[in-house]
């Protein structure tokens, strides 16, 4: 009855999504352009995880324990309801980041870790911005601004206008800067979400 040292029959020889380099599992990455912020690189990674309670805590702990501050975080379901996707943007040097990737891969609930730092991606953030308006001129100005940035006006009342902006982080930044000449009442931004272009899986 003792199967303390028993073999497990249907463990896949190679877990799906695991990439190898010299026979060593490694996080996946590709070549392209780097985004720099000061001396450190901004890394964008996708983490595919089991859709279970506690997983986000396990993942974020890997960063927190090593003193990393997350720039942005987005969690959502995927095309497969048993899998969630965590998209994280974090600043750090390559070596430290490699460590993080390796430690993430060790988590049982992590299925795949993809480093998009150098990937050809479509990446989007969404922001909702509520601006105070007390006259028609301001309202018109904001409307113009919205058109310029292809933002949408999603709510209007006598004293406020709400804009929805979708785009890369710098576009959302730009809209925010422009709107600062008015009175921004409230602002909320999602984390960055990304998908690779073409047939390549993210």
């Amino acid at each position, binding site marked *: 009855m003792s199967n303390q040292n028993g073999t497990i029959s*249907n463990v896949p020889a190679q877990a799906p999504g695991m990439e190898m380099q010299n*026979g060593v599992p490694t996080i996946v990455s590709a070549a392209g352009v780097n985004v720099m912020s000061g001396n450190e690189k901004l890394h964008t990674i996708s983490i595919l995880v089991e859709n279970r309670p506690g997983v986000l805590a396990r993942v974020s702990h890997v960063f927190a324990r090593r003193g990393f501050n997350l720039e942005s975080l987005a969690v959502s379901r995927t095309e497969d309801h048993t899998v969630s996707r965590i998209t994280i943007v974090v600043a750090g040097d390559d070596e430290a980041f490699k460590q993080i990737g390796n430690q993430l891969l060790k*988590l049982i609930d992590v299925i795949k870790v993809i480093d998009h730092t150098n990937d050809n991606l479509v990446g989007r953030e969404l922001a909702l911005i509520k601006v105070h308006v007390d006259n028609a001129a301001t309202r018109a100005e904001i409307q113009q601004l919205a058109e310029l940035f292809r933002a949408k006006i999603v709510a209007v009342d006598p004293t406020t206008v709400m804009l929805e902006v979708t785009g890369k982080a710098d576009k959302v930044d730009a809209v925010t800067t422009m709107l600062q000449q008015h009175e921004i009442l409230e602002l909320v931004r999602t984390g960055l979400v990304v998908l690779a272009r073409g047939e390549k899986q993210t």
Partner: protein
Amino acid sequence: MRLVAWRRRFPLETHNSALKTHYWSIMDGAEILLESLKQEGCDTLFGISGGAILPIYDALGKQSDIWSILTRHEQGAGHMAEGYARATGRVGLCIGTSGPGATNLVTAITDAFMDSTPTVFLSGQVATPNIGKDAFQECDIFGITMPIVKHSYMIKNTQDIPRIVKEAFHIARTGRPGPVLIDIPKDIGEREFQGAFEYPDSVYLRGYQPEAPAADEQIRAAAQLIAEAKQPILYVGNGVNSVDAADELLAFAEKINCPVTTTLLGRGAFPGGHALALDMLGMHGTAYANWAMHESDLIIALGVRFDDRVTGNPKSWAPNAKVIHVDIDPAELGKIRFAQVPIWGDVKSVLKQFLEVVAPKQHSVWNEKLEKWKADMPLDYEKEGKLKPQFVLQELQKATQGEAIMTTDVGQHQMFAAQYYHPKQTRSFITSGGLGTMGYGYPAAIGAKVGCLQGHRPDADVWCITGDGSFQMNIQELATGVLYDIPVKIAVLNNSSLGMVRQWQKLFYSKRWSGIDLAKCPDFAKVAEAYSATGVTITHEDEVADAIREAQKNPGTVVLNFLTDAEADVYPMIPGGKTVHDMVVDGSGNKIPVGGWAKSHGGNGNGQMEREALETATSGEYAGEWNDDLKAGQLKI
């Protein structure tokens, strides 16, 4: 799939009549849990009961396949499970109730995590409807332990128990082993299990690939480096013990005639006293092991993680060596030291592959040099004055011939044990390395002995080398050892102080003693008697051998209370964060050049003159110097 025990296995008549209801024909969660544990081959459970795990203890009391050992503290139970696992290679199992029972397990869980010990920790939890409501003895042990477990579960459905147990044991023992926590709400254990009990044959965890065969090209690349090396060294650790690869290691080391140094947790992986054995390396390693590492041109690192207690300052450690690094945990490869050839695999299989492709070699010049170093600079200590702890260990080595399983606590006595005890076999040196947990030694010894009694090595003697500080951290387990008749021989190296801390205050804080005096309290021999064990106090060298012999003959628990010299410090020493050039071998504080005095001064082989000259020049200055280094942040202690 196996179909087991749909009906309960106990004859109704033998049980309390009040419980005879129609439920008898149905298993509850607690019974399903125990049945699943049995399917995993569990024979022992260490722990303490309490409110939230009453259902499990109730079920435990009605069966006899699993030996339920009641400890006196959950931490003790945790270390017993660890000792059991380390001695046998099987998964150690322990249990505590919710709240304080669970938090008492935390140190042991962390210890198992740091030392990669295959263990499953069961914790009670308040009933599902009370979770998150600050119920009595509720604590979020799942959350608390997240960073210190290999994986964890909270059971939400009685139906999930078999799958979760199956996965937990699979995860605990495969790949890089480690602790898995299963948190069990009280009502899960009480609830009826719907349907027939089926234990799964397999697990499916798509995010977990514990191991794969090592890549052929990596094996070939390693073979190439090995063929080219002139001064190779095998640097071996816990990874060898944990997959029982000692035989393969011996065959491989002999085939390529390569010296072997072991880490603290690697003790026992290579037979002590072997001509190729360089003994332990690192902060308190032998001079010859550290020198060999420094001059090596190839490090074959097997199941090690280049810990800071080994490398000191990794930037200047083994500066001329290429590295072949074999480890079951890919995250360790290149983590501290770049490896020219990283190999992901278990050490046993990789060694077998090496043995196939690597041609026999001789390294006579290299080995002759090391032989000379061993002769020139053996482990040594000041013999004048009070009873020396090193002497006690030398006598223990003589009396046991390295055949006993030895556990240790943490402190000077631990380092002396690692230096002077030479285990013949793998799984014979059980110590808390990564976490350095005082209070580990005695419970680990009980666990190891239980593992032996359960059929692993029934005749093995188990010794615990402990200190007066450490022993008191789990001394209450004497009751467990005595009452269950789990005979362990305990050698207390009693220096009336927190010796290791005292040594550091001596070296780095100019002897400003602070918080290290344990006075002569308690009398450990009397404590032993109070627990109905045998206690003996030894003060002189000439009593040591007899006392050990008597203890060996004694069938029960024995506490040997050795009153040792508080000034006996651990040498050699390379202070934390420093290099081999900072090694001192005695209290004079003289730094010994690599290769010894004779070499660097071109002397006659014993370097006596140079040694004396340097002694006058530098004597006693190290304390001040290291004190400065400490303030400058260069010393990592």
